[in-house]
């Protein structure tokens, strides 16, 4: 009950800030909440809008699959090989903190303008945190678990399935949650900088042709999508950690 009240309070606060911004800057900069909602409903009935949505979502889905599979696989490998992991860890952490936006032109030069550049850009954003979380998960396995597996004479497959997998899953889910957010960020930045399709393009184009309503509405929809997806993943994350 209190949680519901809390959520209502936060939403009310955000709406107040939004209205204040509208009162301050006016029609030329930001659309008011109600008109944004009606415009969102109108957008949903346009086929062209769904083309942009599917462009973003396709790129995002491919990028997330690649970052997830490669990130977890490489993370497991580096986590199990202690030496390689120790060599790679600081390199990965510093790659994680550099502004990767600056690398986008390289992606464009290698992959050309279009889907594959966006995907690649999403992957370089999302893959590294997934790797880092996976490495940490493997490194932090309690030695007693592995020794127990030895004592019970489990074979390598059984050890992997019944001991290692349950032990590393919660942390990997956290990594995937962070990777999800960053992959989305990467894909959207890619679209904002150089693209003719997708939601990022709609936002930046709305700004350039002074279609404030479009800009505000698409921004809101992207934010709602991100928060909803994060909420789901967070719930999954907490469940996984509770059972661990």
């Amino acid at each position, binding site marked *: 009950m209190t949680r519901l009240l809390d959520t209502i309070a936060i939403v009310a606060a955000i709406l107040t800030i939004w209205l204040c911004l509208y009162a301050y800057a006016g029609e030329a900069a*930001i659309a008011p909440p109600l008109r944004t909602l009606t415009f969102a409903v109108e957008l949903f009935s346009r086929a062209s809008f769904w083309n942009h949505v599917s462009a973003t979502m396709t790129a995002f889905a491919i990028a997330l699959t690649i970052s997830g599979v490669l990130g977890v696989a490489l993370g497991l490998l580096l986590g199990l090989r202690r030496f390689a992991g120790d060599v790679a860890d600081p390199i990965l952490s510093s790659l994680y*903190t550099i502004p990767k936006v600056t690398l986008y*032109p390289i992606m464009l030069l290698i992959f050309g303008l279009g889907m594959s550049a966006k995907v690649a850009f999403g992957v370089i954003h999302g893959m590294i945190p997934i790797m880092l979380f996976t490495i940490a998960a493997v490194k932090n396995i309690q030695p007693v678990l592995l020794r127990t597996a030895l004592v019970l004479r489990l074979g390598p497959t059984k050890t992997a399935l019944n001991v290692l997998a349950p032990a590393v899953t919660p942390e990997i889910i956290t990594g995937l949650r962070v990777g999800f957010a960053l992959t989305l960020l990467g894909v959207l930045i890619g679209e*904002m900088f150089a693209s003719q399709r997708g939601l990022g393009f709609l936002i930046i184009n709305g700004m350039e042709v002074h279609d404030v309503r479009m800009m505000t509405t698409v921004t809101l929809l992207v934010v709602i999508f*991100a928060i909803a997806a994060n909420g789901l993943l967070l719930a999954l994350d907490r469940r996984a950690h509770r059972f661990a």
Partner: protein
Amino acid sequence: MTRARGIVLTRVALIVGVIGVLELMCRLGVIKPLTMSSPSQMAFELANMIASGELTVPAAYTFAEVGAAFAVSIVAGGALGVLVHARPRLRRTLDPLLASWYAVPFFVFYPLLVALLGLNALPLIAIGVIFAAPAMMLSTLAGLDRVPRVMRNVARVHRLSRIQEVRFVILPSATPHLFTGFKLAFAYSFIGVIAGEFILSGGGLGYGIAYAFESFENQRMYALMLFVLLVATGVNGTLHVWDRRLRSRRGQT
């Protein structure tokens, strides 16, 4: 000790090897000069740009913005952290907001900020702060949580004034976390400002890279990229080493 040295040596060899392979592939024409200039060329061009003073203006512009965003994030994030820590009810209310903060791809707000604040340095600083301040706030909360209750009681027993309590009890316990906050706030301010400049702006390093890309000046673009990467890794590395030293000193005492 020998294992630690082996790790460092392997790491250096790996980095040098990657750069060497890139250099070789560029020289042999496996990577076309239109795609990428060789690392040595990047360094040469960068040195030229520094010597001619061409880099000074955009670099100063970007660093001023990053500095402003960093300073505001530290002060505002720290203050909010202290405020919210004192009010558990407020903290619980804000919890879902903070948990989903970094899931939102903030750069989608950038056009909105430009519309609100104009095409100048302000929206760039704002996006840096939006990105960095919550990290500082979360680190401040974590730091204050780690002050042992018994320490606070000791402070009360000794009748320390509020300022003395902060100086002798709270800061020593919370500093490592605050430092993590500084580290994150810097990285996030830098990323926020550069990305904003890159998407839409009239000056600075990010703008320089985007401009060079659009006018096909590859050498310039790669030199600027190299500069941004060097600055980012340089500052992050320094903060990392400093942080480790701080922690190991605390571990010894």
